[in-house]
């Protein structure tokens, strides 16, 4: 039986990828720093840190495919963790895979390596230009993947745009919470920046297809049906039907306020949020389509609606403190006050 290791397999996207691999008939092994209590009998769980070489060397043994989804995301706000998990952990994993003769590694990177692109669309060989610590760490992890390729390991890199889908919370949990309660969400400036998301199922699909493709490659992944940030939120407000409407805030002062709030630890913002929220970024995905015959099923609009509906159905459990950053709603902090204030705005 084909053995697939999913690192970070208990995280938001990792757990969806695990489902996909089980459906494909793989024996799935999960390595995660934290494991949920409701474990499935058909999955082999190993609790461990990606930075622990002996653990990693052990879990890659006899694995045919390795899907690297461990990531310390920007919400964690711990620079040491950001570097050691994303960079050192990736190196330990790749070295172990090379020694163990793993057939294929699929490494989940991030569109954050591009910072704010000077032009769109962004292609797989567009030069990286990370602007904050998370993007820098993910880019350095890609360099390690390139080194591993040069050393003979078959590694494909997948760079997803911002991930949505049922169960996705994190900063989106706050957005959904506001809209569900009729508070007004904001865009920076006029919100006419074109912004592309990807549904977790589409991401799992491209990861699966990449694993079946012989030879290293680099794929940028995002939906092929998307519009502006304002359009995405307006459609969501319409779908919710709670009376929320999209408001514009001046981009620069608001970005500054987000930075100050993050510095004071009174709002769950990370640099990627204030850098990218008002900027355009989209991938050309024809490379993935041509090589992997991959086509995204979900549009921006549909994935927002589905994620929101899931939130409504599971709102009571959305603050589970034991879940990973993207599987629980980020703490609102001062945003709770802003939320109440928006209700005072003239309709």
């Amino acid at each position: 039986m084909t053995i697939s290791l999913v690192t970070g397999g208990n995280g938001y996207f990792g757990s969806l990828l695990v489902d996909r691999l089980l459906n494909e008939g793989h024996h799935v092994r999960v390595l995660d720093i934290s494991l949920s209590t409701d474990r499935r009998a058909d999955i082999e769980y190993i609790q461990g840190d990606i930075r622990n070489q002996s653990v990693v060397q052990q879990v890659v043994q006899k694995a045919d495919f390795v899907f690297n989804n461990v990531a310390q995301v920007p919400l964690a706000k711990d620079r040491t963790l950001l570097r050691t998990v994303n960079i050192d952990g990736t190196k330990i994993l790749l070295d172990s895979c090379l020694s163990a003769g793993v057939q294929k590694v699929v490494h989940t990177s991030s569109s954050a390596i591009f910072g704010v692109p000077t032009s769109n669309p962004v292609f797989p060989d567009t030069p990286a230009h990370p602007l904050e610590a998370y993007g820098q760490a993910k880019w350095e992890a890609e360099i390690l993947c390139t080194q591993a390729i040069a050393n003979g390991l078959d590694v494909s890199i997948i760079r997803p745009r911002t991930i949505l889908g049922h169960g996705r919370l994190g900063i989106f949990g706050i957005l959904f919470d506001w809209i569900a309660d009729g508070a007004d969400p904001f865009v920076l400036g006029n919100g006419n920046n074109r912004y592309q998301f990807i549904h977790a199922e589409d991401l799992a699909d491209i990861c699966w297809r990449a694993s079946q493709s012989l030879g290293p490659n680099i794929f940028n992944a995002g939906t092929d049906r998307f519009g502006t940030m304002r359009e995405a939120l307006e459609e969501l407000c319409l779908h919710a039907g709670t009376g929320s409407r999209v408001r514009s805030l001046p981009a620069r002062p608001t970005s500054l306020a987000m930075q100050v709030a993050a510095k004071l630890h009174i709002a769950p913002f990370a640099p990627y949020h204030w850098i990218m929220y008002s900027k355009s970024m989209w991938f050309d995905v024809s490379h993935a389509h041509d090589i992997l015959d991959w086509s995204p099923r979900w549009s921006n609009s549909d994935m927002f609606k589905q994620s929101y509906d899931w939130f409504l159905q599971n709102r009571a459990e959305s603050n589970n403190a034991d879940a990973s950053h993207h599987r629980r709603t980020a703490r609102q902090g001062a945003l709770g006050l802003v939320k109440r204030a928006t209700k005072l705005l003239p309709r």
Partner: protein
Amino acid sequence: MSKTLHLSDSPAPLVVTGAGGWLGRALSSHIVANAQSLGISRYVALVRTNEEKKLLEAELVGISTVKSDIRLCDVTSTDAINSVLVDLNPDNESSFDLIHTAGIIHPKKIQDLYQVNEVGTRNIMKFALDHHARKVVHVSSNSPFGNNPHSKDLFRSIEPFNPYMAYGESKMRGEIAVQEAVSQGLHAVIVRPPWFYGPFQPPRQTTFFSMVKAGRFPVFGDGSQHRSMVFIDNLVDGVFRARQWTGEPGKGWWIADQTPYRVSEIVSLVGQALRDEGHDVKTNRLRIPNIVGSFAETADALIQKTGRYVQQVHVLGEMNKTIACDISASTSELGYIPQTSLYEGMRQSIRWCAEQGNEL
């Protein structure tokens, strides 16, 4: 028309810089074993570290036919060069020849490339000029000329500079330093080897064999990129032929095999050589799309901009390029004809690895 001098008629001391390096060790073995026929009255080998000195001493013991001494010298320091070579030509009346191989290709930091390949070359050329060297051969590279725009294109002996990354830039500056010394009266010439291989190879070349053996050598696209290659003994021959050149100084020659090879052909031929040396070789399966090469190249450039250097990324970024040269000028002017074929050279290299106890 060949313009060569039979230097055996007028023996002189010979200095080799970088004698502890890959090419330097091969040259040293050849020199001490054939000093008389090469017209060498005394051999002075300059090495960088004590480890290199000990290694070279061990390699030359028992085969030396000429007075040889191995000296530590940092070519980036003019004071060090002057002090280490103080006895070479003290009265500036006799003369000596010099082969400058000292160079660095995979540095810890980018600055080292310029320090060794540019400053080091300028220092050595100045010493040679100041002390009336008879002949100087400078070993350069394909990198000052970048890569060929088409897989069928060949670099001729005269090409415009188009350096590839910082290494190419540093080797270009080295060549410019040589040309400046030539304009001031130094009889210096340049040899440019592309990808060379053979005994004395560093660990990265052993890795090359290991990857081919495991079927994991990264071949881009259909492997149709062309690469010129040269066996180290052929290169040593080319260097000594260049030393005998009595025509116009400042000339440069490619020292390589007669024709370039497709990368897929190289991998297949090395696989065959490994099999014939008794190794179990897997079919090469690591085909890489050009987009990965393109990514590696831009990543390499970005990394180098920060002053850092990551060897594998640099190598991968260059792997999908054609780097091929035309040796017709070397043949017509120096009489250079490669004697060892790629297959035979690879077999010798594999045997050398085995003799050193290097596991493939």
